[in-house]
């Protein structure tokens, strides 16, 4: 086999090192094929990440106060969470996982509605059609197929809409991810796969998850271009996702993106990460903080000053305060809801069961 032959398909391969536009120390990294987002976008990214982290901290605090049953933090992943979302156009769709509450909020969904699931009041608390966000998905990798189907339908209907699906490094091992990548490539569906490789699937490190040079190397096996990007560089994530969305919208098919990042907290508040990883590893990644990095860059260029920073912090703080307050209000749940949405019309059996429950609750009240 000649080098030329091998090269034939190698445009589908990712770079060996993750693409970055801003280095960990805040200095710019020129890239021939990738344009640095303009100052306004960078500021939106920064604002989004600060608000995202504040939301995340607040949610974690709410678990301690018993106001949330459980919360999977995305701290440290803000560049991937926000960078991807802000690259979407209004008509595009997001297919998030349980970890991506921050992204869903950034997409414009009411945070209280977002937290309905983790608060335990219902499953999906928001209307997916309002901000074009599918329900947050717990069964791993299953959302990748929904995204592909949704995107393919958009194409059939002649609508200009791209689907962005989020998944974790662990989820790439599931059969559904494989089927989704394959369907997407065969159909040339307008879908973008954004893998947040945060190093762990609960306690299982990447090395036990795959032996591949990178997760992005999976793309070529589907005939899909793939990109390896520094997942702590919001500018790079944004640029890469924007390019992929543009490709998809232009009918050029799907893209697989791996964003290399790190889950700074435990898997959820119920998990204890010290059981399976060293503090030293966490420290290393804290030094690569996505917010500090972009802050440095913006400050160096005079795009961010103290006043602006204060305004950004204050707004994030105010949002968090509102969230806290609203989450402290007890919701009233109607048990009859249990039976209302199983089918378009409740069946006879469900009507009877609903009546039984009502009777039970009425008797209970009297007792």
């Amino acid at each position: 086999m000649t080098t030329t032959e091998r090269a034939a398909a190698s445009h589908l391969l990712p770079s060996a090192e993750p693409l970055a536009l801003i280095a960990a120390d805040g200095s710019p990294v020129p890239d021939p094929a990738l344009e640095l987002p303009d100052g306004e976008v960078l500021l939106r990214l920064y604002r989004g990440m600060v608000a995202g982290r504040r939301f995340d901290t607040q949610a974690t605090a709410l678990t301690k106060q018993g106001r949330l049953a459980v919360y999977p933090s995305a701290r440290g992943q803000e560049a991937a969470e926000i960078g991807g979302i802000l690259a979407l156009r209004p008509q595009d769709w997001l297919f998030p996982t349980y970890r991506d509450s921050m992204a869903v909020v950034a997409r414009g969904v009411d945070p209280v509605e977002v937290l309905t699931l983790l608060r335990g009041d219902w499953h999906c608390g928001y209307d997916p059609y309002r901000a074009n966000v599918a329900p947050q998905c717990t069964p791993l990798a299953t959302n990748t197929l929904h995204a592909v189907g949704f995107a393919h339908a958009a194409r059939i209907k002649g609508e200009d809409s791209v689907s962005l699906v989020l998944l974790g490094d662990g989820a790439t091992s599931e059969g559904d991810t494989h089927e989704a990548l394959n369907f997407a490539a065969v159909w040339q569906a307008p879908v973008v796969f954004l893998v947040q490789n945060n190093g762990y699937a609960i306690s299982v490190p990447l090395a036990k998850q795959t032996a591949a040079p990178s997760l992005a190397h999976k793309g070529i096996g589907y005939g899909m271009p793939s990109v390896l990007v520094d997942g702590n560089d919001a500018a790079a994530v944004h640029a890469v996702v924007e390019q992929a969305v543009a490709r998809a919208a232009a009918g050029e098919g799907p893209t697989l993106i791996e964003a290399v990042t790190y889950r700074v907290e435990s898997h959820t508040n119920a998990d204890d990460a010290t059981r399976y990883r060293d503090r030293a590893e966490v420290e290393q990644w804290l030094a690569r903080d996505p917010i500090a990095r972009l802050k440095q860059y913006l400050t160096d260029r005079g795009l961010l000053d103290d006043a602006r920073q204060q305004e950004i912090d204050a707004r994030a703080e105010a949002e968090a305060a509102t969230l806290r307050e609203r989450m402290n209000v007890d919701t009233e749940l109607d048990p009859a809801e249990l039976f209302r949405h199983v089918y378009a019309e409740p069946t006879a059996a469900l009507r009877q069961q609903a009546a039984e429950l009502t009777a039970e609750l009425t008797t209970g009240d009297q007792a």
Partner: protein
Amino acid sequence: MTTFAEAPSASDTLTMAGALNRALADALTEDERVLVFGEDVGTLGGVFRVTDGLAARFGEARVFDTPLAEAGIVGTAIGMAMNGLRPVVEMQFDAFAYPAFEQITSHLAKLRNRTHGRVELPIVIRIPYGGGIGGVEHHCDSSEVYYTHTAGLRVVTPSSPSDAYALLRQAIDSPDPVIFLEPKRRYWEKETARLDHRGSTLDRAEVRRPGTDLTLISYGGALGTTLEAAAAAQEEGYSAEVIDLRSLSPFDLDTVAASVRRTGRAVVVHEASRFCGYGAEVAAQLSETCFHYLEAPVLRVAGFDIPYPAPNLEQHHLPGVDRILDAIERLQWDDSAPAGGA
């Protein structure tokens, strides 16, 4: 997006496969949102020819072959339905729907409920099911209980060409996800079929033969055998009412209980294994709701509690006329002899 074409109301000598094909063609004609896809359903027209000619007639964008992956088929159908389409997908055989089990139970069945009714999934999953065609292993499962036990799914199964047409049209029109079980051993039986779905409903059982001494309850592939058994029972002096459930979920208790209260005796007949089979639910509900009317326990005639056997042994597994007649004999007639009693 819906096109309101003229409703078809022909009558024709048709097989069940033919009737299903007509139902798909009519649905594709009347509603642009309807799509048909799966393995080999395009150019080939399906391994049972149920989708024969549809790709040519409606184009590759609406009737097409997918890569070979059942979770992929159901999972992408869910995404398409979220985006306003009405996919009708095929699982090539019963046991080959199992790779899609997670998509079916965790998403298809639950998404409406999870979203408080905001996301509707009007998807039909067609599954050729059951045995009796000499199929090798993994091609003959009666998998209905896996679906009927899953809240949020409708599960229906036709027993004749006319009903296949009506049920499939209604399934496609339904706002709920429907598991559409096609009894493959009835695919080639002919009938002068009335192709009309307006008069019928998706969730009612139908009395296929009236009777007074006992009620035989069946569905799908076993219904024909049950009707034969009823005819044979008549010879022996038992007047058996035969009910075709059609809808397995929801279960039409009203129709069935009304009959059993009249007859006082009941036998449920199905191919699936007995243990935790569908007949258990029927027996449990009848025992509960007709307790004081029952002259004998509700009996079940079902497949054995074994993996579906190889072709040359399947006749021993499938409930046949004799086994149904035996069950009828065991309905404790001694105390109250029937009309022409035993």
